[in-house]
């Protein structure tokens, strides 16, 4: 192979070159900004994590798996996964092979940004060698893969249902421009390389096209225009990229190391949050997942639009969207890039201004004074915290106590005569400092009790005890875990009934604390469990969640109904749940019995 032009340059590379330099500068500035905006402690943590060999390896693996191969989408929707990874991985391979070719055949041009991209234009083939043909084949092969992905993408625009998406995102104008230029890039590449295949060589795709062009269609002199078109499409795509959803391509490469370093979102539009916002690919998988989507009017409150309006600094819309959400966490769970939607919303909520702020000094004097003596238990014993919600569903605490008595466990109930809230509902409203105050008060009472196990029957309390409390030497257990443990140790035995029940995963217990199996294995001791249509990490929020601030009673009832229908798919006799709030919400609308986990267990003690 040899170069066709001494200068190694042609004017048509300019659009591409402009776009490429622009996007590189933009990304470097953006990345620096995000890192500067991190709080100093997080920045240090991030820097350290980059140099830990284990973490660095994980970063590389994750970048390959998530940015190029899109394994997460493959697992959910294989066809969608193929579409994404064919474009991403195929394009990546085209770039890499282009560079390798340049290193091999024109090593003095390796510094030029445009040279590997337009390699076929600048080079001329003298004789076909095996190595050359191998590269030609690879290039055509990956181009074919990308083209298949692009045709799937075009098809998806019109019939997204076939690829497993019921609803897709409404795109912005810039998104459309970038989308069409992305679609144009690869067919134009095929045409341009086809035009030059007679001079620069080609393989199974480009040579037949060259033959067609040469014999039937066009004058060979026209090939200059097709290269211009190819470069223009690339230039437009790269120039518009920062203002469109395609920004997720570079942003995700930064997000993955940040996430692996364990950095949390603290403010709604700074640092980590910014990395998350730009990493949102507006794919719209969250739209189908969102329980609010049952009503068409509420589709506008899904995460994909939150990131869009946060990016645009639209305060009114961002507030509306972040306050509406139920915080069930399903969108974050299925998000292919891992946008922490609940954290973003919480950060936004925490930035709201209130004229009247709460303070809980009144709790200093007399919390739990009624049962202060009772609270003292000897070392290694259980302290049971029923939580606010359980006092509205007294059957739960009664059943828990019955089971504890049966097992002969020494315990004491912390909030028998009315206790303080765990603080999570307060935290969900964004009042983080006030929540901290409550957390301190509770920590004091619980640590002083001398217990070694804190038993909670409410997933809302459980989650905050796990995530935000620091209870030294005290193990926090949800009653599903604890009773499963007791049953395993045969401290309580149950009799098997002939009931056919379905178990509902409460959001905070399942997606929040990843407890899916303990309640199921405990329940399988007393009944036959039938699966719901969507369960475990895909379970649908009951609609009663405290996460939402502004969702109306009416809208909630639609969600509850939808969630019940999802559970009823295998016609169970009873719905079992392990959350007082779900219990209360379902009981309002369900046509069959809704029972609490502890209640059914205590009814079946042998």
């Amino acid at each position, binding site marked *: 192979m040899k170069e066709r032009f001494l200068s190694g340059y042609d004017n048509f590379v300019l659009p591409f070159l402009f776009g490429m330099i622009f996007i590189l500068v933009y990304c470097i500035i953006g990345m620096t900004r995000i890192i500067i905006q991190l709080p100093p402690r997080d920045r240090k943590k991030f820097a350290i994590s980059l140099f830990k060999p284990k973490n660095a390896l994980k970063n590389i693996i994750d970048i390959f798996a998530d940015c190029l191969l899109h394994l997460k989408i493959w697992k959910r929707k294989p066809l969608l996964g193929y579409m994404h990874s064919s474009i991403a991985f195929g394009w990546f391979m085209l770039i890499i092979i282009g560079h390798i070719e340049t290193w091999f055949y024109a090593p003095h041009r390796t510094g030029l940004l445009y040279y590997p991209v337009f390699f076929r234009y600048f080079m001329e083939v003298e004789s076909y060698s095996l190595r050359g043909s191998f590269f030609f084949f690879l290039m055509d092969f990956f181009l074919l893969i990308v083209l298949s992905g692009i045709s799937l993408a075009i098809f998806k625009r019109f019939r997204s249902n076939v690829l497993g998406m019921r609803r897709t995102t409404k795109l912005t104008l810039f998104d459309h421009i970038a989308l069409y230029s992305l679609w144009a890039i690869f067919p134009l590449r095929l045409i341009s390389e086809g035009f030059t295949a007679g001079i620069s060589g080609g393989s199974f795709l480009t040579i037949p096209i060259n033959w067609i062009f040469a014999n039937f269609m066009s004058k060979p002199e026209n090939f200059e225009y097709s290269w211009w078109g190819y470069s223009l499409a690339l230039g437009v795509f790269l120039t518009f990229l920062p203002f469109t959803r395609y920004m997720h391509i570079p942003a995700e490469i930064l997000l993955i190391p940040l996430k692996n370093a364990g950095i949390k979102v603290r403010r709604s539009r700074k640092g980590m949050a910014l990395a998350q916002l730009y990493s949102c690919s507006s794919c719209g998988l969250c739209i189908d997942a969102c329980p609010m989507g049952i009503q068409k009017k509420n589709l506008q409150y899904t995460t994909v639009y939150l990131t869009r309006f946060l990016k645009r600094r639209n305060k009114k819309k961002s507030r509306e969207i972040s306050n509406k959400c139920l915080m069930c966490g399903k969108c974050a769970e299925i998000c292919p890039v891992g946008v922490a939607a609940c954290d973003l919303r919480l950060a936004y909520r925490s930035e709201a201004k209130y004229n*009247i702020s709460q303070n809980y000094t*009144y709790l200093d004097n007399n919390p739990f004074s009624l049962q202060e003596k009772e609270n003292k238990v000897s070392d290694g014993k259980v302290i049971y915290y029923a939580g*606010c919600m359980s006092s509205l569903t007294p059957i739960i605490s009664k059943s828990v106590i019955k089971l504890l008595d049966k097992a002969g466990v020494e315990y004491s109930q912390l909030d028998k005569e009315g206790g303080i809230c765990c603080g999570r*509902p307060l935290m969900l409203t964004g009042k983080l400092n006030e929540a901290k105050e409550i957390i301190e008060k509770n920590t004091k009472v619980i640590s002083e009790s001398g217990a070694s196990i804190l038993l909670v029957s409410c997933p809302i309390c459980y989650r905050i005890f796990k995530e935000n409390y620091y209870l030294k030497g005290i193990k926090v257990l949800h009653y599903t875990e604890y009773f499963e443990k007791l049953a395993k140790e045969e401290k309580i035995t149950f009799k098997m009934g002939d009931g056919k029940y379905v178990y509902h995963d409460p959001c905070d217990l399942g997606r929040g604390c990843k407890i899916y199996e303990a309640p199921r294995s405990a329940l399988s001791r007393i009944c036959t469990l039938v699966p719901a249509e969507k369960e475990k990490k895909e379970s649908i929020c009951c609609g009663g969640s405290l996460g939402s601030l502004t*969702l109306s*009673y009416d809208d909630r009832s639609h969600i509850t109904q939808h969630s019940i229908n999802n559970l009823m798919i295998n016609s169970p006799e009873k719905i079992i749940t392990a959350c007082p709030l779900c219990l209360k919400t379902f009981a309002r609308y369900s046509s069959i019995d809704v029972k609490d986990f502890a209640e059914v267990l205590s009814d079946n003690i042998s």
Partner: protein
Amino acid sequence: MTDFGFSIDSSKAITIEDQDNHLLEMLHEIEPDIYICMACGSCTASCPAGVFVEMNLRKVLLSLQRGMEKETLKQLKSCMLCGKCNIVCPRGINTRNLILSICKTYNVQ
């Protein structure tokens, strides 16, 4: 004056004309539900903060509508926003957000 062993409170009549309602109207715009409250008191009965201090959402709402918010608004400072009142409300009022909206709209010195 003769001591009868009891006294009569001063008049509690409210003069609507004197009342400055603009904050209430602002609140009503964001929370249309304030007028559907039937003052049953379920919220107050279920309130966990009410065990320790005076916290009476029913009273707060009534006093807002009567232009007497100064006397009761500071009660909201004790609210733990646990949402129990929200669950028990027979009228389906979103009390939790109502409290937040009051905290945004009104001010206490």
